[in-house]
């Protein structure tokens, strides 16, 4: 204790000193910590208080038994874990208890119990039985001593001189240049992570940022997503919404299907023809009140889904951009910056709805040269 009190009191004065660079010279620059006499002297570390387990043999024994019991119970939990692993089924029975699988539940509870009991036991041991005397250590500044600094600086200087790096400036510069250039391979090697947008662009195949599957053929039918059946305008009631894809797209497989779908998916709705305010030049883009837009949000590309038939508004579930389908899918609310691209609809000889060509603008999120 004596040693604590000494530090406590002695050191006390200096910890409220002035910043070393400011003293005297620039009175107003102290940023301000003035060494005013401290109102209360440091009373020093209080007397250690002993725990019952330090002074009472019985209490210590009791604590010892508690801790051991926890470790034993932990072992029991582990045994139960093994039992649960080998006896409880998974697979079909994954909602046995309140929607949780029996296996998952018991494995987790027994594992948790085993771990918690060890943890609580160790902490109880530390709190009750290990010496709990606080000890004091002096701090040292993080910086090295001036002497060390000077020595190191001198060593560095010697190294610098012996290498001649300062003298041979041509070596220095060419070395810098050559190592700097090595950044190029590191970056260049990443180039083949993917093709450039321009190199994959192909209108006939519907690839690239500006083309979709709709442009891969002449007057492609709009078919229902999943089932693939073509649609006549008369099949739809006022207020219906159909998720459509181009005919033929569903024959694709795997990634090709995903890529094509991510651009070509459309929503088609039917409303009273007089309710439609066609965009300029788009007077004949709808058929009998059936009007068709890209399903891919012009914000960051979520598929749009929630349609409200009375207002003709469709809402993107991701960030709630709202588009008015009766009015060229203009943005009426939310973060999207552009209307949904519209698909020019027509009907073929058999009366089925078809696209009169690809979208006239890129679908989905904006990108730098989308207007080019």
């Amino acid at each position, binding site marked *: 204790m004596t040693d*604590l009190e000494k530090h*406590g009191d002695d050191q*006390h004065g200096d*910890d409220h*000193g002035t*910043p070393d660079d400011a003293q005297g010279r620039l009175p*107003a*620059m*102290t*940023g301000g*910590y003035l060494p005013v006499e*401290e*109102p*209360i002297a*440091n009373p*020093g570390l209080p007397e250690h208080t002993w725990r019952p387990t330090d*002074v009472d043999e019985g209490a210590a024994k009791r604590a010892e038994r508690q801790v051991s019991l926890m470790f034993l119970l932990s072992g029991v939990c582990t045994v139960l874990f093994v039992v649960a692993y080998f006896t409880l089924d998974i697979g079909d029975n994954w909602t046995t208890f309140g929607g*949780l*699988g029996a296996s*998952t539940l018991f*494995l*987790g509870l027994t*594992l*948790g119990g*085993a*771990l918690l009991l060890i*943890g*609580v*036991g*160790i*902490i109880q041991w530390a709190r009750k039985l*290990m*010496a*709990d005397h*606080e*000890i*004091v*250590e002096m701090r040292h*500044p993080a910086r090295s001593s001036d002497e060390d600094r000077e020595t190191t600086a001198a060593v560095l200087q010697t190294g610098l001189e012996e290498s001649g790096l300062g003298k041979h400036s041509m070596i220095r510069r060419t070395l810098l240049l050559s190592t700097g250039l090595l950044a190029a391979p590191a970056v260049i090697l990443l180039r083949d*992570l*993917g093709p450039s*947008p321009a190199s*994959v662009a192909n209108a006939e195949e519907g690839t690239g940022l500006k083309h979709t599957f709709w442009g891969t053929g002449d007057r492609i039918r709009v078919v229902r997503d999943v089932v693939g059946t073509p649609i006549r305008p008369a099949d739809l009631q006022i207020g219906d919404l159909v998720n459509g894809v181009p005919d033929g797209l569903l024959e694709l497989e*795997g*990634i090709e299907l*995903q890529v094509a*779908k991510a651009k070509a998916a459309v929503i088609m709705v039917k409303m009273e023809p007089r309710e439609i305010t066609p965009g300029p030049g788009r007077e004949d883009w709808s058929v009998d009140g059936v009007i068709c837009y890209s*399903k891919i949000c012009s914000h*960051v*590309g979520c*598929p749009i*889904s929630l349609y409200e038939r009375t207002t003709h508004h469709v809402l993107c*579930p*991701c*960030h*709630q951009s709202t588009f008015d389908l009766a009015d060229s899918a203009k943005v009426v*609310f939310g*973060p999207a910056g552009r209307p949904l691209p519209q698909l020019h609809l027509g009907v073929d000889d058999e009366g089925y709805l078809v696209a009169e060509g690809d979208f006239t603008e890129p679908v989905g999120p*904006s990108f*730098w040269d989308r207007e080019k």
Partner: protein
Amino acid sequence: MSIDTSKVADSNATSAAKASKPSKAGAVATWADDRLGLAGAMKKNLRKVFPDHWSFMLGEIALWSFVVVLLTGVFLTFWYVPSMGEVEYQGSYDPLRGVHMSEAYASTLHLSFDVRGGLLLRQMHHWAAMIFIASMMIHLLRVWFTGAFRKPRELNWVIGCLLLFLGTLEGFTGYSLPDDLLSGTGIRAADGFLKATPVVGSYMSFFLFGGEFPGESIIPRLYTIHVLLIPGLLVALVAAHMLLLVYHKHTQWPGPGRTNDNVVGYPMLPVYAAKAGGFFFIVFGVVAIMGATMTINGVWKFGPYDPTKVTAGSQPDWYMGWPDGLLRVIPGWESVIGGYTISWNVMIPILITPPALLVLLIMLPFIDQWITKDKRDHHLLQRPRDAPTRTAIMVALMTFYGLAWAAGGNDIIAIKLHLSINQITYFMRGALFIGPVIAFIITRRWCISLQRHDREKLLHGYETGVIMRSPDGGYSERHLPISESEAYRLTARDREKVFTADGRIDENGVAAPGGRLDGVRAKLSTLMYADNIQKPTRAELEEAHHHAEHEKALTAALTGHAADGHQFDGKRPVDDEALRGD
């Protein structure tokens, strides 16, 4: 009561204890030291002193949950297949049998339904990841509010911020791996973010996805990032964080015997190591129980990713919520300049604000230091109230974060509270700017009031709740002095002085350069310090105590009387004493 105190050390001895009989452990230690020579380094560090306070546990939770995440993650890699190849699901989960999906999703289902303990580990991994990120955030707040980031610990603050950033990124990549509908929606949005980048956006998207979205490369690439790249960086940074912690020694709260020059606490061996080690098991155990009882990310519910499907209320993990909120409330600003599209509606909330806030967070200690011009080492913690402006800055940032986060759930708020999404959005647009300002003002004032209260306590004692009536009918509350250690604790803080620019004149009477910045600094310093309540000087304290003596003399008749005030502060038993009239 006689106690054998010889068995406990009260400081770290510098000379070795008497040699005793060689033990088994001793033999092992000798074998190891003959080869590694670690005893020299260990002798100091094994008894390293760690101060104790509940708030120091927050960082520990982060550390241990990170360990749990590493352990469970390794297990997951044994079954998870990072491939976007298409397969037909034939596992145990009936509703999806026969559905075409990516191998990644199928293996996640396999892990959840056909591997014993697989679902448990998946859920433990996810819960531990959330605890990891949440505890890092709260730990960061603790460090800021107590001033633990000050010199010499600024670098550990920077490392901590990077850990938080990388942890968040790691969480996002992990969340994307199952390749279910929700994670695919997240990736789809990420594609939109990349494309919004000026000039190179569409290239970045094509390179990341290996072609057009979604391509077949994104899952394997995210996998490498998730299990190798970021964990490697995280482990290195955590190690650096811990090394610096040990090197600087932990900060401590001021108090009797605890100064800026010492550190008082338990030695690492055995008490601190036992407590910390035990705590690891507790964190691990709690995660196991969470994984057992709380379903998280039930990937089977939504089916495989399909670019034309989305579920209402689809949201990222909570720590990604705040940029998502900003993304929701931003107006639809997009401009076309010279034929090129600039998507402000994506750039501001995603590409500009979060990185800018990260940089601000990293810079905070340096900004603080620039304003206070305080270059000394600080090892004593400050109470939040003792740095009102600093505390208020963080509360303002927290308010911004909280509002943005709430905006990320605007659809859920709208449904729960029967409000319109539009109203919530308009409200948030204003609140994001006004809220932090209000929070700043209130917090700062609040802290200053608390400081004033502390000063009152020091000068006039604490309020006993005893009301006294003077002979001429006035009422006053009786105050009693606080204990010496309490008083010391309240005064163990710096005395601040506002920086003034006009005084910056050098010896020759010429105004020094850099005067303009000094003006700014003086204003900031005024904001920082001018309204703070400083602790009383010794003279003030003596004067106040003198006054108290005087008052005591006046009420001397009461001392020792039933109602001297100490009955109500729990400092004295009140068995035989009763208030008059009781």
